[in-house]
């Protein structure tokens, strides 16, 4: 009887926790759709913004956001996978493992505004790059590195030791073992990390607002050292014009587009993972 009560109590706690999370999420998404859907038109998505965003659309903001995050992904993914492989396959000493762990965790714990300030000082002031979308990508790439490293590392260390041993016993070199066993078996986890990282990166404002973006008058960049406009910085600019109802509606519309983009990232990564698992298992 006592056991039953405990079971029911435990079940209801879990149900409540799940319910609270789901309801909060549904509330956020439905508010976004409710408020933002009215703003979404073909013109809004495919035309450029005018008058600091209170008129016109958000095409260059969408392009800017995608450009920044995709480039950040291209920079950070191989780097992170490399770090994770180095950490799991080459660092044997426990003390060194602890040091690398601390470094990765610390990097993860740095507030995003610090990345922005670092980018401003190091790239813009010291290297004189000017306001550059590419610098923004580099900063975002550094910012999402720990997420991808940790997720790749976790999936590498979960590969059973027997896979490594069998490959080594077939006379494979360490690089061959990494190429044929470690990477194929861990790429899945690395993609999950990338997805989490990108979902964070695309919504960031602080790291890029000083170094990579401009609030108006921006089109498609023609070189690496031109600014772009992104959805988060655009939403920030629109929110500052809260007295203008059109600007506010555009802010909601832009937010909905941003969340949809994040959602698309998740779905495409999921599809990619399913395809991958079909090939290999």
């Amino acid at each position, binding site marked *: 009887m006592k056991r039953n009560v405990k079971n029911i109590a435990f079940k209801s706690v879990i149900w409540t926790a799940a319910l609270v999370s789901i309801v909060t999420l549904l509330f956020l998404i439905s508010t976004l759709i409710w408020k933002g859907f009215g703003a979404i038109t073909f013109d809004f998505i495919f035309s450029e913004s005018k008058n600091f965003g209170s008129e016109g659309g958000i095409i260059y903001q969408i392009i800017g956001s995608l450009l920044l995050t995709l480039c950040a992904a291209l920079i950070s993914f191989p780097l992170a996978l490399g770090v994770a492989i180095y950490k799991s396959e080459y660092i*044997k000493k426990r003390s060194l493992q602890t040091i690398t762990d601390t470094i990765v965790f610390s990097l993860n714990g740095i507030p995003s505004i610090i990345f922005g300030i670092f980018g401003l000082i190091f790239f813009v002031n010291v290297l004189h790059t000017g306001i550059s979308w590419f610098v923004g990508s580099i900063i975002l790439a550094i910012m999402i590195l720990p997420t991808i490293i940790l997720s790749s590392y976790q999936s590498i260390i979960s590969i*059973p030791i*027997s*896979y490594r*041993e*069998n*490959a*080594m*016993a*077939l*006379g*494979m*070199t360490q690089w*061959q073992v990494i190429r*044929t*066993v470690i990477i194929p*078996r861990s790429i899945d986890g690395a993609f999950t990390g990338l997805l989490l990282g990108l979902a964070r990166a695309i919504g960031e404002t602080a790291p890029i607002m000083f170094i990579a973006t401009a609030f108006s008058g921006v089109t498609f960049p023609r070189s690496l050292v031109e600014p772009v406009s992104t959805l988060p910085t655009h939403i920030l600019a629109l929110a500052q014009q809260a007295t203008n109802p059109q600007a506010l509606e555009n802010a909601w519309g832009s937010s909905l587009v941003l969340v949809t983009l994040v959602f698309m990232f998740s779905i495409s990564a999921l599809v990619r993972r399913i395809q991958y698992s079909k090939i*290999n*298992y």
Partner: protein
Amino acid sequence: METNTALKLNMQTPEKMEVCINISNLNVSFDTTHVLKDITLDFQKNKVNCIIGPSGGGKSTLLRSLNRMNDDAEKIKTSGTVNFNNQNILNGVKNLTQLRKDIGMVFQSPCVFPKSIVENVLFGIQQHKKLTKTEKKAITEKNLKAVALWPEVHNRLKDSGTSLSIGQQQRLCIARALAIAPKVLLMDEPTSSLDPIATRSIENLMEQLKEQYTVILVTHNIAQAKRISDHVFFICNGQLIESGAKNAFFNNPKKAQTISYLQDETCICR
């Protein structure tokens, strides 16, 4: 005429023994644990050399010293010599790839890669040389036939290796090890996770394999050693207690430890 006499003489000698791997004074320790103590023995060429003994006695460590699989272990110390191909493999061999191509290994539980059957057979050899389509086909067929798996899988080579039964998976692992054309095959309790029928098929396989390869088998199954070994080495508590040809070893063991172990599988060494 002279040749004929020589031939006759040769046939009269009981059995020609040729040493494949010679080990002398092998000591292995992990940190402060002395696992192998002054092991000196010869593994015979083209025979099933069987290492028996209780768990934790150092059998696997001995086997893994032969293809240097212990190299990556933390705080390992090795001394002594292991001669193979006129080289001390403990320090004379720099190229582990060549060593492991010469001395293949099959592990306790079958480890099939999540790939097709044919990709599994070619998994190792493909890393060592570029193969044409015809060669790939020939190698797959030859080695799957060698492990008697060909009749069962020849019409579904593209299926995943993991779809096979455990016994078939272990034979696939042996085919994969044979595909790199080793001279010696190390087998670390290869039947311990198999059912009796699969076990028998692997044992029969070993009988055939020894014609071309030197088999070094670790087992704690005394009955299995009786069935298939040619030469037996009893290792307990890190020491080689006794060794000898199968019949002599099982019918007439000399040491008290061996007698005790053969009678009730208990070890009185410690």
